[in-house]
């Protein structure tokens, strides 16, 4: 039978495939809307990336606009505003990477070690909550907390420190505010995947270690952490390759004329060039360049961690 199948000419196999296809026409019709959606809303914009190599003005269609090759990318290389936005993006990302990567691991271990279930539940419920706030909501809150008579200054006042400044108007503090507020928002939620993985660790390992006299810290170090090491590597790869990602919602709500020099990130620069100044081709080129570098970063970090992990890839 298998031999016959192999011998069947290409034409026959083609006909059989179509026969099967039409036999399940009801299922195929159900798939159709999704396929059409993807072509329109995902693949047409991907085709639209050719804008980066064209000189597009509002009167053109994407197809009509004249090709200009790599001219946009040459301009990017000499664009100091663009490089400022890269520096800001990296500055914020690096703080976020270090804290936002380590804190959820520590928190997850701590929550896992809580012996009393209701307490565990309360901690999880409260720490997951900020994940569900939009950046507009959190931005509004931050403006209130960081204002000259807000929560932060009032708390510092109790400890005898009188700064009295509006922190969001101080450009030098912006990287700290942007990264720490992101960590505050996502640290609790970041524990979920670790906790789910920990739930799968064999409990008899802990019992054996306890009988052998291993301390709590040793049990965490030798059982819990190795148990979630794959998840840790995965998160590390994703955070390192996302180092050029910037948060447009956050920037739009927290940026003001005083802190703009430190707050402008790549995404908000693309937004400003494209949506505010109407330079569609240039903004597309910046976006495309960053996406390509991010993709390269993903491949490189995956290769590096694979080397470290004895040639086992987590992706």
């Amino acid at each position: 039978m298998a031999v016959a199948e192999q011998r069947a000419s290409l034409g026959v196999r083609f006909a059989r495939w179509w026969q099967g296809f039409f036999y399940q026409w009801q299922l195929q019709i159900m798939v159709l809307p999704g396929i059409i959606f993807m072509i329109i809303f995902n693949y047409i914009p991907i085709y639209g990336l050719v804008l980066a190599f064209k000189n597009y003005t509002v009167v053109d269609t994407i197809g009509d606009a004249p090709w200009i090759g790599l001219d946009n990318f040459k301009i990017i290389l000499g664009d100091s505003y663009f490089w400022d936005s890269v520096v800001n993006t990296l500055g914020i990302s690096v703080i976020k990477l270090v804290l936002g990567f380590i804190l959820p691991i520590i928190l997850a271990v701590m929550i896992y070690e809580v012996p009393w279930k209701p307490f565990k539940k309360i901690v999880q419920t409260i720490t997951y909550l900020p994940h569900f706030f939009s950046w507009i909501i959190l931005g509004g809150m931050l403006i209130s907390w960081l204002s000259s008579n807000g929560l932060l200054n009032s708390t510092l006042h109790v400890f005898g420190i009188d700064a009295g400044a509006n922190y969001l108007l101080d450009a030098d503090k912006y990287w700290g505010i942007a990264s720490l507020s992101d960590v505050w928002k996502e640290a609790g939620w970041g524990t979920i995947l670790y906790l789910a993985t920990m739930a799968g660790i064999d409990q008899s390992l802990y019992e054996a270690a306890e009988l052998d006299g291993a301390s709590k810290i040793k049990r965490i170090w030798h059982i819990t952490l190795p148990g979630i090491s794959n998840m840790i590597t995965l998160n590390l790869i994703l955070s390192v390759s996302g180092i050029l990602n910037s948060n447009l919602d956050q920037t739009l709500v927290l940026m003001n004329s005083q802190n703009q020099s430190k707050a402008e990130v790549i995404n908000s620069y693309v937004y400003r060039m494209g949506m505010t100044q109407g330079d569609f081709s240039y903004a597309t080129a910046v976006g495309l360049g960053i996406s390509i570098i991010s993709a390269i970063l993903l491949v490189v970090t995956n290769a590096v961690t694979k080397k470290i992990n004895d040639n086992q890839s987590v992706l």
Partner: protein
Amino acid sequence: MVQDKSLALDPKRRIRHSSRAFDVVNCTLLVIFTLLIAVPVWNIVVASFSASGSTGGLALVPDKFTLDNYKAVFTDGGMWNALLISVAKTAVGVVAHTLFCALFAYPMSKAYLKGRKLYSAMGIITMFFGGGMIPTFLLIKSLGLLDTFWVYIIPALFSYYDVIILMNFFRQIPESLIESAKIDGASEWRVFSSIILPLSMPGLATIGLFHGVAQWNDFMTTKLYVNNEQLYPLQMRLYNIIMQSQAASENGNMASAVLDTTTRGVRLSTIIITIVPILVLYPLVQRYFVGGTMLGAVKG
């Protein structure tokens, strides 16, 4: 002394002793972390119920309790309109998105679907590549969706992440159930609407809640594609209120400082009103989200 000796002799005892110290330190740190999240949020709630003259600060109970801020917010007709838009786009968006994804996920959950490999490759590519802000904007513009209500619904109809989660739910339904319905003459459409959907309620609820929170919190769609104030949802309205008061505090002069304290109550109570629906649904959201996130991550 005797106690110390027994501790030294019995290793198990010592462990229990040291882990009690561990538990105390551990729980104390967790309480501190939880308070670092709860206290600032509570501070906003309190400030929104405080009289407009109060300075805010470290208060944990309202300074001169008042509902004036909320009254001021709700006497503004624009607020009711924004609330209506937010509720409408969330409700319509959740139903449309969930059904649209389910319709695609059901045939995709069948291993024998012809062309399945091609369709799933198409879907997976959309998870990693996109056209970005400008090409997407030009598409939305050429489709005539700018400044319409449908710009909130149509571009958000489909997500391959959600399709993967739904496929996993649909695969758990026994094939024999579907086969027997087909022998009784049910069409695929009938199987989908009368067997698959009713039996996958937890899966549909997960997707619906995911999308509901995203719709409620979405602000970028409005910022990019909508200029008509009649179509502004709560998030956009809140954004504009925040921008106005920021502009005032940037100027830094006395007149604008006064303006800042008077608009402060309105700003904070609008924040609270925008959070309330999420807080109300939160217990439900937490239950489904935790499971749904794991499913998407582990099997995706």
